[in-house]
């Protein structure tokens, strides 16, 4: 019996010839990460174990991206714990404010998460790196503490689901729409405990940014990991960035899938996930034109990359943000910010009347830099629209791609990109 790419990577890291879904194994880790929310808890647990060093100081990233630049005294104390630990144990990849970006945008950009890797992170969106052909999954802080001490973790080998997309995407339809559509079809627990393998001609033609967006949201279907087989696009992406050796794995032709889903997405249009679940998906042409909004947020590990900002700028150019709307834009990393500046995107945003924040998770988790008040509605390019996710428990979040978000900011209500004139 053949193996899937997920099974092959896990077998290789468990030092076994083959592994089977359901099997509990210990795997060696190539890279691990934590942030300023999960890291301090991991450090507290690490110190209880009683070892005097970390397993490898060059394979750990500590990334203060959630509440930084420090939003209050308590969060300042949390990031200080991270900083002090990084110094004490000589952690190579600690990123200080000014150099820090949102973890899941930063690490691929830095060439630290690579094809064939086995990665865990104390953050649920660690599944993002599957876009590079890696096995990558989110865990909690205690798991991370154990991994910092040992370089290992226990895992159950997941069953795999295969998603095959055919056809050609229409204008304004992005990776975000593919993944929202998919979650809408299978539900928020449709892939619980399982691996989601994304494939087919549509995926083969997608740029890395869209692939990262798709794998980022595998967790929103409950998946353990999302993964895409590496190809030329992958290799072109990693070859100038890679800070280590990497290895390419592919699924066997006779690999075993729990289920195979096949869709022609040629007629897919931009979709919106309504409150309060990412699976509550509606087509943009079918929603009413009177959902007035207070805020639009373009950013996050899902859609804060340069490609996302370019798409937003294309719509916003020469337009003004609606008087009743606050548009907040967060370039996900300092490099993205710099690139946006060089390309004139930041100027377009400022002229439109947007607020630009430093790279941070900020509003995505209702932390700071744009928290919603009671009764407010927001369109966000983020990944979660749970009750209270971006602020008050009685606020609402609508998830969308960057083009829809930008168009909505201009219109003052949820609207489609084609309702706005694209200016040269």
């Amino acid at each position, binding site marked *: 019996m053949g193996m899937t790419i997920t099974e092959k990577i896990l077998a290789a890291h468990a030092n076994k010839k083959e592994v089977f879904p359901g099997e509990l194994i210990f795997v060696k880790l190539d890279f691990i990460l934590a942030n300023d929310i999960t890291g301090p808890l991991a450090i507290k647990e690490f110190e209880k174990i009683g*070892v005097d060093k970390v397993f490898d100081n060059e394979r750990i990233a500590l990334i203060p991206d959630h509440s930084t630049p420090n939003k209050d005294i308590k969060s300042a104390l949390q990031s200080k714990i991270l900083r002090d630990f990084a110094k004490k144990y000589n952690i190579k990849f600690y990123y200080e404010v000014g150099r820090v970006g949102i973890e899941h945008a930063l690490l691929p950009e830095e060439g630290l998460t690579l094809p064939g890797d086995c990665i865990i992170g104390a*953050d649920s969106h660690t599944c993002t790196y599957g876009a590079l052909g890696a096995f990558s999954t989110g*865990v*909690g802080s*205690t798991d991370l503490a154990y991994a910092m001490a040992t370089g290992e973790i226990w895992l159950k080998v997941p069953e795999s689901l295969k998603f095959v997309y055919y056809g050609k995407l229409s204008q304004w339809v992005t990776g975000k729409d593919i993944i929202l559509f998919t979650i809408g079809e299978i539900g928020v627990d449709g892939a619980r405990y399982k691996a989601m393998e994304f494939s087919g001609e549509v995926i083969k033609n997608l740029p890395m940014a869209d692939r990262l967006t798709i794998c980022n949201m595998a967790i929103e279907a409950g998946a353990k990991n999302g993964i895409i087989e590496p190809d030329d696009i992958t290799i072109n992406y990693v070859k100038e960035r890679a800070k280590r050796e990497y290895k390419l794995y592919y699924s066997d032709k006779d690999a075993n899938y729990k289920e195979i889903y096949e869709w022609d997405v040629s007629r897919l249009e931009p979709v919106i996930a309504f409150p309060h679940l990412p699976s509550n998906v509606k087509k943009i042409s079918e929603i009413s034109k009177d959902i007035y909004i207070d805020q639009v947020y373009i950013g996050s590990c899902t859609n804060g990359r340069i490609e996302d900002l370019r798409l937003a700028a294309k719509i916003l150019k020469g337009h003004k943000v609606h008087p009743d709307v606050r548009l907040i834009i967060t370039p996900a990393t300092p490099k993205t910010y710099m690139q946006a500046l060089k390309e004139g995107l930041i100027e377009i945003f400022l002229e439109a009347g947007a607020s630009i924040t430093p790279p941070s998770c900020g509003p995505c988790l209702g932390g700071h830099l744009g928290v919603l008040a009671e009764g407010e509605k927001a369109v966000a390019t983020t990944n979660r629209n749970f*009750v209270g996710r971006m602020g008050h428990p009685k606020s609402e979040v609508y998830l969308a791609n960057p083009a829809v978000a930008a168009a909505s900011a201009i219109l003052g209500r949820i609207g489609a990109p084609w309702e706005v004139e694209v200016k040269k």
Partner: protein
Amino acid sequence: MIFRGRALKYGDNIDTDVIIPARYLNTTDPKELAEHCMEDLDADFREKVKEKDILVVGDNFGCGSSREHAPIAIKASGVKCIVAKSFARIFYRNAINIGLPILELPDAIDEINEGDEIEVDFESGIVKNITSGKSYKTFPYPPLIQEIINKGGLIEFAKEKLRKGGNL
């Protein structure tokens, strides 16, 4: 491990943002986290849990963010154990790793009412609804997970391995 208590019921897809909202994540102190546990879902949770300390919940409990603050807040609130139709996977790991006993019981949850007295036996995987007189059997844990639970969590598991002179 056998727990006996009254059922406190919630539905499907209870996410970790609602168990402990991000605005309280600037601390790791269990007591402080417990003060805000579930407050966006049920303002009376802290009162109710004094009487009803076994959570009986629907599908996909603990979905969303990986924050371990969620099971920590629940444990520190005085919840003895959780019985669910199913758990989201990161929450499942986290609960086991911090020594919060949890059990999946897909078919019986709908037959348990809020306030029912129930008994959960983790060794045998048997859940008894004392109020209705029904009992249910579920799969026991695989040996590795049982070992982590018996040690009281992953950190104690790691310490014991070290004590025995083994490599971690």
